[in-house]
């Protein structure tokens, strides 16, 4: 019996024929990438320029002691670089611990909820989400009563602030799977764990990444608020200290540092998502 299905194509045929039009796919792709990098840069330069020329200050009636000009912030960076670097470490360490811990906790709780009946699970997820309503200002002081170490006090607070988002997103991502795909898995009598690993988890990837991206913001904000309220070190403390003593340039240097950290984390996550899970971001292929 010979192959009815078309014979394997000659290997040479599988090699890409170069795009015949010069404005073809490769070029378009690159143009897109260039624009994606260029656009924020151009906007950045524009914003800084307008800021430095006091355009925003005039527009909104801001005082330069309240929102310092970029050159002053850069100066502050230079003047206080050592201090800012130390402060950054003091903020980033607990933020990171809280980020990892909070996301793990949120994910773990989502798994626990999946073990419950659906109705109850949904309610549990709403209860988890409600924890997000606890303002950091309320949580931090109580945690501070219990934990003496500044590092761990901040970390635990960040965990409490971070975990609800991951809980909600992960639970929803894992429960939103196609029922027939579930049937397929059940037909193999896949264990709960296998269904989780092979189906629910990959399916939840977009939602999980959304939670991760979002909690990068939360982790820094939470750590900073801890520092403003109770702990007295780190970037939050620098900001508070500078603001109260009218050293706004240093405060904004710290804010800029925070913003940069957030952006870097976000971009890292974006890259991990794009290259680690290309199928999750598949766009129209043409």
């Amino acid at each position, binding site marked *: 019996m010979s192959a009815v299905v078309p014979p394997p194509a000659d290997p040479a045929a599988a090699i890409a024929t170069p795009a015949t039009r010069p404005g073809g796919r490769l070029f378009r792709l690159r143009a897109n990438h260039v624009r994606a990098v260029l656009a924020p840069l151009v906007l950045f330069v524009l914003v800084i320029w307008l800021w430095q020329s006091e355009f925003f200050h005039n527009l909104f009636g801001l*005082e330069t002691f*309240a929102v310092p000009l970029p050159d002053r912030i850069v100066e502050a960076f230079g003047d206080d670089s050592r201090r800012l670097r130390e402060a950054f470490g003091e903020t980033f360490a607990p933020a990171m611990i809280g980020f990892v811990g909070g996301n793990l906790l949120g994910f773990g709780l989502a798994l626990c909820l999946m073990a419950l009946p659906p109705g109850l699970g949904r309610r549990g997820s709403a209860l988890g989400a409600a924890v997000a309503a606890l303002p950091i200002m309320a949580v931090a002081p109580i945690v501070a009563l219990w934990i003496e170490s500044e590092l761990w006090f901040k970390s635990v607070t960040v965990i409490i602030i971070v975990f609800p988002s991951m809980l909600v997103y992960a639970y929803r991502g894992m429960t939103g799977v196609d029922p027939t795909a579930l049937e397929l898995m059940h037909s193999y009598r896949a264990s709960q764990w296998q269904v989780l690993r092979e189906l629910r988890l990959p399916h939840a990837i977009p939602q999980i990444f959304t939670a991760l991206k979002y909690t990068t913001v939360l982790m820094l904000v939470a750590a900073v608020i801890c520092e403003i309220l109770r702990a*007295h070190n780190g970037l939050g403390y620098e900001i*508070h200290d500078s*603001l*109260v*003593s*009218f050293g706004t340039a240093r405060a904004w240097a710290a804010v800029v540092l925070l913003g940069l950290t957030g952006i870097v984390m976000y971009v890292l996550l974006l890259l991990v998502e794009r290259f680690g899970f290309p199928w999750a971001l598949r766009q129209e292929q043409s």
Partner: protein
Amino acid sequence: GSSDDDSGDESASTGSSTTASTTAETASAPVCRGDDIRFQLSFFPNAQHTGFLVADSRGFYRDAGVNVKTIPGGPTVNPSLQLAQGNVDMAMMDFTEAINAAANGAEITWVGQTYQSDPLRYVSINRDFPLAGPEALRGAVVGTQQVGELEPELRGMLTDAGLSIDDVRIESIDPSIETLLNRRIDVLPLQTFFHISQLQEAGYRIPGDIDVLDPNELGVGVAANGVAVNNAFYAEHRDAVACFLAGALRGWETAIEDPRGVQRDVEGAQEAGLASPEATAINIEQTIDLVTRRADGGTSEPLELDMTYLDESQRRLLEARVIEESVDLGELIDPEPLARAKAAAGS
């Protein structure tokens, strides 16, 4: 500063012990017809604001011809920044904050001094740290409520005792006595108008269970609470500021006369249930003590601008490096509106 002000110039810049009241006879009474004033409190409304709260609840501001909107503060509100940005017209803050703001270019003027002595006390509840005198601070974990550089009072005490900053461990803390009670620190600076009652409610007898160091007695106190006005507002509403002070003066005088009688006014402004009536009574009593008693033990009228005290305070702040350069107090401070307020009261 109030550059067009001539009456205050002399007294302020000489640094003599004259006070603003000396100009009272020459000042003219202000006339106000319902000017709006946004007045920022230094904290959540509490007994430290007694006079202002009384003026508000009893309509003294209205009687003086100004329409005052009292805005609460809190740990996340920085009154000097709010004032400098013009988000409020007048604000209550510590002298330290005002001088710092002015040094950084904020256009504000100091028009009244609420506290005539330093409200700070260094206390220990820890028997391992009997605070007989500043020398006892050696090796202690000392809390500081003020962000930024060290409290000038602490620095003064250490210097007096022949100690350096390396002999104590400084830990910044929030404006609450929980850290002290949680035994995380040995020595806490607390505010007489706020924390003494809290310690008493926590079961401590004062004095007795607690050792106290008083910066006033040790000669290291600095000026605290006072009132400042935004210069742009001041330029347009000179009379209104005087009228405000007139209303406030009446409020404080009422409180001094009958501390028990104004308790209701304070409780009305303070969030219900936050302080027991007993605590509030103690706080008012302590506040009035601060408002009327000078650091040297003499008595003072409310809101008096004691130039000697303010000059001395600036000197301490410079010493403690809270500020880098001295500020021209003649620029910062304007006693005229207070004088006119008194003239109004007199007429």
